[in-house]
């Protein structure tokens, strides 16, 4: 169904980050928002994406924000980097989703919801680290990889799952000895993202706890956040609720705290 060759071909096809983005990220790393905005302006698609995502209700701005310098100024260095990473991920997403019933717009919403809630969590945990803030951007890579690898095999996957409660990550692991999060890590590596980003997302798979205490803790929060988000109506309808297995035991220790942070009663 899916072979290691197919996975390698997919990884090969991942384009390197465009020049304008690389420059933008370099300036953001140097904490120079003005220069970052100038180079970001060269990428019109990035401009449109940032305007779209920043003006979503979940970010809570009263007036429309349309200028890139203004957007970067409001977001600050860490959130701007996160937004650029989010944009890079959309470059990998398909024009037309087949396996999951998503659209460009609903995928942006998913990114925005994850991002906004991840900020809440990091604020609660009193963590201020640009790379950790950005790590959430890589999480939906597992969704994009699933779409790319399984979209031609929807019927087979459905038949398989009608006789056995098996998630896409497990199918891939059993067939090719690699999983969706390993592939996400390769994407992060190709885009020269900080290694911490991939480590947190690997831990967020729920099946590969990290030996590093902080990364493991963040992995738990991210895993629970993912399923909190994927339990929402548009994503359940999109078929995302059970694409990977939710590991309740893994997140049990932070569950009560999570409910408080998300104000769930």
């Amino acid at each position: 169904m899916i072979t290691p060759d197919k996975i390698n071909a997919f990884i090969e096809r991942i384009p390197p980050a465009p020049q304008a983005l690389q420059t933008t990220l370099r300036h953001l790393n140097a904490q120079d928002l003005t220069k970052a905005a100038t180079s970001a302006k060269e990428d019109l698609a990035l401009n449109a994406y940032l305007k779209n995502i920043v003006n979503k209700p979940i970010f809570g701005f009263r007036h429309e924000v349309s200028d890139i310098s203004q957007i970067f100024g409001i977001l600050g260095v860490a959130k701007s980097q996160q937004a650029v990473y989010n944009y890079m991920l959309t470059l990998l997403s398909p024009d037309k989703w087949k396996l999951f019933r998503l659209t460009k717009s609903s995928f942006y919403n998913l990114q925005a919801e994850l991002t906004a809630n991840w900020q809440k969590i990091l604020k609660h945990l009193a963590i201020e680290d640009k790379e950790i803030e950005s790590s959430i951007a890589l999480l939906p890579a597992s969704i994009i990889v699933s779409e790319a690898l399984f979209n031609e095999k929807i019927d087979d996957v459905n038949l398989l799952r009608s006789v056995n409660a098996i998630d896409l990550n497990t199918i891939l692991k059993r067939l090719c000895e690699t999983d969706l999060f390993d592939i996400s890590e390769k994407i992060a590596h190709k885009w020269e993202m900080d290694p911490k980003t991939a480590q947190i997302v690997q831990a967020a798979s729920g099946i590969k706890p990290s030996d590093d205490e902080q990364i493991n803790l963040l992995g738990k929060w991210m895993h629970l956040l993912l399923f909190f988000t994927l339990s929402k109506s548009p994503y359940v309808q999109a078929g995302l609720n059970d694409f990977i297995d939710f590991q309740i035991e893994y997140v049990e220790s932070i569950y009560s705290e999570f409910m408080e942070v998300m104000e769930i009663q």
Partner: protein
Amino acid sequence: MRAVVKNGIGVFHPQGFLDGNESATHLSIEDIEATINNNAVMILVSLKKVIFFNRNGLDAFVKMFKKVRAQTQATVGFCDYDSKKYQTILKFYNNELNFSLFQTQEIASLFASSYKNKNKNVLLYSEDKSQRAAMAIELHDNGHNPIVTQTYEEFSQKSEAENAYDEIITDTYLGQMGQSVATRVTGNAIIYTLTSFLDTDISDTFNIAYHNNSLNVGFRLFIFDCYKVVSMNIHALNFFSKLASSAAEYNATICFVGMTFEKTPKSFKETLEDSGIMFFPQMDDILKNKELLEELGASSAAVVKSKRMLNKATVSELPNFIDATVATIEMMTNAKAVKSDVQIQEITIKNTDDMIGSSIGYYGDLDGMVVLVFPLGIAKKACELLIGESTQDIELVLDTLAELVNIVGGKVKTLLGDHNINVDITLPRTYPNIESLMEIIEGKKGVQVDLLFNQEKFLFFLTR
């Protein structure tokens, strides 16, 4: 979200948060209908991977339960929860609990008449006296040995005994139980479970097409589990007499087990016996008597009297059948298949060592049977994806092979459906060796396709 249907039990597996009306989106009308169409006798929602739920979140599923009950009378409810979740559900639905709650899927399967393992020693406790009694009766009727404890102290004490019980039931509640004619396969016998009053409705609730195709696939022993039957009227009598006549054409046997004639005229028994139906007081009188089983045809299927020829419609759809099979095995093994030979003939298997077989029947616009013969190596490899590891346990391989053949059947159904040909599929059968397979298909002509997977010969045979 689609349910996983296994041994007649369909289970939905939502994950995360069942919060508010959003949980209604977990189930579409198609999802529910697909589960009903799979002949599930029990439809459950597993709460194993649900970390949070509220009343609104559960209500969406409860509405689905009502809908299913109205259509099929299958047993419906929730399963896989801890004590806290159980108490919460009881609190939410206090006096309006008309669905069931099973602590685990394994416990639920004890109450499903399609469950194939019997004679389990089951320790049970419920605070509610009437629930204790209801569970004990259901378990007993399903062939298990319930040990009822009257107090929680007694239950705690007994449940500490190691290996004393196959299952321990607590935090379980029986709502309305199923009323339809449930079907299960034990070895090579098909067991139908009948309940309450047998009248003219039996012709609607009994799936005659399924029964006829089970005959065609090679099943020769049909047991009607009548422990829960209260009485029978003349319409049901006529129905079973006709069923017995059609079974006789295939040299098949129909047995009634546990039928009492307290409220049914004794003359009915004589009429049924005259038409060839046999009566036994207990299920074990048949299932534990190997000689009798052999005599009744459950271990050695007699050759079908009327051999049916392949017809043009079947042959013209042959590529679909082969595609479905090849695609499934390729998917499961990640190996490419090469077609080596196609012949219309009686099945020919040159090397019968270390080969196992499976078959699945289909019926509707077309009817027939797909037989697959696997070298043990390919079968094990194909099952690895479902089991998750390699195994030497042949029973497990055969069980998993049945799931795999079910996938082939499902794929055939879909592919034919694309050509506006509607078929349903029977339960799959597996054969631990070629001898047992040949008892079913020896002398039948069909299309034999030899395929090579990783240089190992795999055989596909399509017959009627």
